[in-house]
């Protein structure tokens, strides 16, 4: 019975989290529609978060590019199909592996940072200070970070995925005698716009999930009695787990719904 009760508690908590997330999303969208979000703050946050995540994206892009090359070369070697290596690598980079790993990376870097900043603001009276000015912290502090997270993941998609593809081509040419010109020709010939749009929409979705999860986890600190450093750490952990789980589940759902077709 105790196990069932504990399980029920976890399910109720997660259901509550999901409901709160959906409510936050609805309010954020409604506020965005009425242009109530602080535009200057949103731009400032986008600039900060974007450049803060550049090193991680560069390192991750190089690593993922290497993995894509090695996996792709296996099939090239097995089926002697060097002309489709570029196409397969582009599918991975722009639509499948690229957005998924980029989403996970951004959850760890941008999401954790947003959660930590907002949780500290909630715990250390900074949101109260904003309220004392007669401002609502949501459109002035919280939602600009949410929009900035979505903007960053959208902005990162093209350069990061192109980096993945470029590294994959170079690695394949170095270790597999795969000619770069053949790879580029394969991309130009076989990759259609739908693939690119699919990947970009995934990144927007992942950015929204990371932004909502991290903001929700942070704001929960203010509603709780415990505002210690431990509570802030738990909020960052919860935000990261929620973001990563959300990205993985959303990726699976999009793929099942025909996103890979």
């Amino acid at each position, binding site marked *: 019975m105790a196990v069932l009760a504990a399980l029920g508690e976890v399910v109720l908590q997660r259901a509550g989290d999901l409901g709160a997330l959906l409510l936050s999303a609805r309010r954020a969208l409604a506020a965005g529609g009425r242009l109530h979000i602080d535009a200057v703050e949103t731009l*400032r946050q986008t600039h900060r978060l974007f450049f803060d995540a550049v090193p991680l994206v560069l390192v991750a892009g190089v690593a993922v590019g290497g993995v894509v090359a090695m996996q792709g070369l296996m099939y090239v070697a097995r089926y002697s199909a060097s002309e489709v290596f570029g196409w397969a690598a582009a599918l991975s980079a722009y639509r499948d592996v690229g957005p998924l790993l980029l989403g996970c990376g951004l959850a760890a870097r941008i999401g954790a940072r947003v959660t930590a*900043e907002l949780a500290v603001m909630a715990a250390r009276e900074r949101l109260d*200070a904003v309220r*004392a*000015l*007669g*401002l609502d912290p949501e459109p002035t502090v919280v939602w600009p970070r949410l929009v900035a997270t979505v903007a960053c993941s959208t902005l990162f998609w093209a350069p990061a995925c192109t980096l993945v593809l470029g590294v994959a081509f170079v690695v394949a040419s170095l270790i597999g005698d795969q000619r770069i010109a053949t790879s580029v020709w394969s991309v130009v010939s076989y990759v259609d716009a739908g693939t690119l749009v699919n990947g970009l929409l995934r990144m927007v979705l992942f950015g929204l999930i990371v932004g909502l999860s991290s903001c929700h986890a942070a704001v929960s600190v203010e509603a709780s009695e415990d505002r210690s450093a431990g509570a802030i750490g738990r909020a960052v952990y919860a935000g990261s787990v929620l973001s990563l789980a959300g990205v993985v589940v959303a990726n699976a759902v999009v793929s099942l719904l025909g996103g890979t077709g």
Partner: protein
Amino acid sequence: MRALEVIELRAQGRGGLVLGPVSLRVEPGQVVAVLGATGAGKSLLLAALAGLAPSTFAHELTVGMVFQSAALDEACSAFDNVARATRARNVPSPEDAARAALAAVGLGDALTKLPRQLSGGMRRRVALARALAVAPELLLLDDPTAGLDPRTTREVLALALGRGSNAPPTVLATHDLDEVVPRVDRVLVLEAGRVVFAGAPDELSRHGAARAFAPRPDLAPSLAEARWPF
């Protein structure tokens, strides 16, 4: 400038603390100090006056508030922290007002500094500049000298309280009997959310100031019960 009139304010804080009833009247230029042990309800009273905690008190005054932790946006410069307030309160020429407020607290040359580049006293002065820049009709100071050395304490108090009859009604929560209380007009002592003393500062010493700082028995063990853990 209007007086602050509070009649039988009641509020509920975190941890189940119930505040009130609290009544007080503060004229423009007057300063009321709120004393009491940790958990007595000082910060809750200020939060209720600022409209940050649910209470029976409502007003439409422009509030300037200095928080215990300064509560600055760490990602913004000193200037941006103050300018955000002046813009939010529709102060005419908000950037100029922010610069003037920072200059008035002696930070005219630290406009571009981030809060983490400032000392504790300077951070508190930025918070004070932010509160004063909006030309508040009610000034609330939550332990503005906590953690400051005596010299910085005197500097901050001189800036916050030394502005004569043009100053707004000011309510200040503090633990500092030596530096703060002699500078205020009235004192309010809270104990577990209830007012146990209200009067002039010199009456407080006769009443027994020690009572204002007696720890709540449910929050702090007595020294006799304390055990060194090693």
